[in-house]
């Protein structure tokens, strides 16, 4: 299942293979990530998209070794520069963390410690990986990092506390912190979700610029397809803890081969095209990871199941395989020639008989689009 994403010869910097992350809880086992595989090369950006709860953060926390192993079952393999990380001792993992691999978190206000200065927090990571750093060097390093991420008057601002920074500056500081040891892989978990658009644009530019200068690999996690379109060389769509589509950024966004991806694309309005055109939402809600639907996890919300013979969608998990557009574009869907079908046919939703993944909840999020579908 995890063969060839890219027939490239250079080994990727990060190779995730058949990663599964589960949380045993009182209510049952949360199957947060199942059988996830991907590779990222130096200098390239992978975008991971998906709705809330689809397992995006959980999978990247696994790469950082940040899960509490007492409460988490992790299987599969994660190789950073060829070194296996799953099952690595905490001591050796710590040598990677913040060093070769670093992470940028979503909300810079809560992700920075309110009681320590920005400078202290930046150099802390530096000191953790370099012994015998003098106070003076440390401070100089912090100022240099702030300068690199474009904070004005870094000399002065280095002694500020996070609450004295604006949202955008905090995220810059966060980026400075993650860059302090020149990491080769940066995982950015929704780095701009908490920010305004104009500031988001600044931060995305900064990330791209840093990547150009230092050739790092970037994994950017987001639910904003626009961000993926601007940033990612490759995109991986997650649904219910699994990868459902994977391929080149532009390729996947323009020629989706999995109904969920297509649904996402048609449910967001955009800046061009006829604004009066109705949106096409995906009915229902994401599945519960405690008891995911049988077969394809998307089947309760999918508008194409009627085109798949033999009720395969509800019976059998579709494999992640290439569709009609070459081996670099993988999709998890039973539909034959799905790319063409998705491009040519609108989804058909069966009445209100949907009850996707809400164990205790009231039945369906009823189909809000009966009007369009009635005649189609």
């Amino acid at each position, binding site marked *: 299942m995890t063969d060839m994403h890219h027939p490239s010869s250079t080994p990727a910097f990060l190779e995730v293979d058949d990663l599964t992350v589960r949380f045993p809880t009182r209510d049952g086992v949360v199957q947060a990530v199942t059988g996830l595989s991907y590779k990222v090369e130096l200098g390239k950006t992978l975008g991971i998209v998906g709705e809330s709860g689809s397992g995006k953060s959980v999978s990247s926390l696994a790469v*950082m070794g*940040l899960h509490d192993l*007492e*409460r988490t079952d992790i299987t599969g393999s994660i190789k950073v520069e060829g070194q296996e990380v799953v099952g690595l001792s*905490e001591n050796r993992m*710590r*040598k*990677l*963390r*913040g*060093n070769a691999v*670093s*992470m940028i*978190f979503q*909300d810079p206000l*809560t*992700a*920075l*410690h*309110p*009681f320590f200065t920005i400078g202290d927090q930046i150099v*802390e*990571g530096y000191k*953790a*990986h370099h012994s015998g750093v003098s106070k003076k060097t440390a401070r100089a390093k912090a100022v240099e990092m702030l300068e690199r991420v474009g904070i004005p008057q870094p000399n002065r601002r280095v002694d500020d*506390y996070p*609450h004295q920074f604006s949202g955008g500056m905090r995220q810059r500081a*966060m980026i400075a*912190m*993650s860059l302090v040891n020149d990491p080769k892989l940066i995982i950015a978990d929704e780095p701009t979700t908490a920010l305004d658009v104009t500031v988001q644009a600044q931060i995305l530019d900064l990330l791209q610029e840093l990547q150009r200068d230092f050739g790092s690999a970037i994994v950017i996690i987001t639910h904003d397809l626009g961000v993926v379109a601007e940033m990612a060389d490759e995109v991986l769509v997650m649904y219910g803890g699994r990868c459902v589509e994977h391929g080149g950024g532009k390729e996947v966004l323009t020629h989706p081969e999995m109904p969920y991806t297509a649904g996402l694309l048609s449910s967001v309005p955009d800046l061009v095209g006829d604004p009066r055109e109705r949106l096409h939402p995906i009915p229902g809600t994401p599945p519960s990871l405690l008891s995911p639907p049988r077969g394809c996890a998307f089947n309760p919300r999918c508008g194409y199941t009627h085109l798949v013979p033999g009720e395969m969608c509800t019976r059998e998990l579709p494999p992640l395989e290439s569709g009609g557009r070459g081996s670099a574009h993988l999709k998890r869907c039973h539909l034959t020639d799905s790319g063409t079908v998705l491009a040519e046919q609108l989804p058909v939703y069966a009445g209100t008989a949907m009850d996707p993944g809400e164990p205790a909840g009231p039945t369906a999020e009823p189909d809000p689009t009966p009007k369009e579908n009635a005649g189609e």
Partner: protein
Amino acid sequence: MFGYLLRRVISGILVLLAVSFVLFTVFAKGPAQPALAYCSKGVCTAEQLDIIERNLGLDQPLLQQYGTYIKGVVAGREINSGTLSLDCNVPCLGYSFKKFEMVTPFLLDRFPATLSIALGASVVFLTVGVAVGVISARNRGKPLDRGLQGFTMLATAIPYYLVALLAFLFLVSKWGLFPTTEYVAPFAESFSGWFKGMLLAWLVLGLFYTTAYVRYSRGSMVEALNEDYVRTARAKGLTDRRVALKHALRAALVPVVTIFGLDFATILAGTIFTERIFNIQGIGLEALQSIGQQDLPVISATVLIAATFVVVSNIVVDVAYAALDPRVRL
């Protein structure tokens, strides 16, 4: 900062004035006839009572009496009773006709003992309580944590006076493992005598409070360990120990400090059981005795002192907040 402190001090003084006025009214108008306390053996003829009341100014309007009292606190006053005329120095809290002593110097005498108990016990429960709380939080869900939690639950359920009494009876009286408990002035008399005399009281009271502090600090430490910034610290490659002790503990201490401020004030205002059982002449014991004897000046003084401690500790806690958390500006 200065403006803030000034505002807090002034509002604190207002609170104390209100407390003292309520006290004053209750005692003057309440069922206990103040003059009665000054009769020998509690028996007086009506004339004698009259004379006493006049001597003490108890026949004057309430507000005027209160004014005299407050003036005594700020500026000192003269207390006349029949032939007796005494100078009561600032802060004058009145004269106890039961003890034939000025209240202020009398309580000041008892204060070092209570302060010693409070300081020593605080050292015990803060260090042990926070340390155990942190250990428990860092091992949350594991057998060690469960054990510690169960133990503190159990310990909380045992009444304090029982523990204190048993400790005294067995550790001191029966087995002699601890020296006799008493208060010895540490500087004027003997430091080691002081230490030995207080040790058991510290341990018993300290361990009693410890259970609560284990719970507080475990709770706020668990919360802090789940904060995003703790995850960030781990993502930097810091050791778990450093993450817990530097990043999480600093944040976890903030709520603990608040509770500590109030607890410390309460202990300072007198710990009746401790002083009684371990035979340490502190303020709590005096408060107890004065209530038994209806010694009104002493009762009001102890209540007022307690209120003062609470007011002051609140201000100190706020300043400590500002010191701990740079976002708080006074």
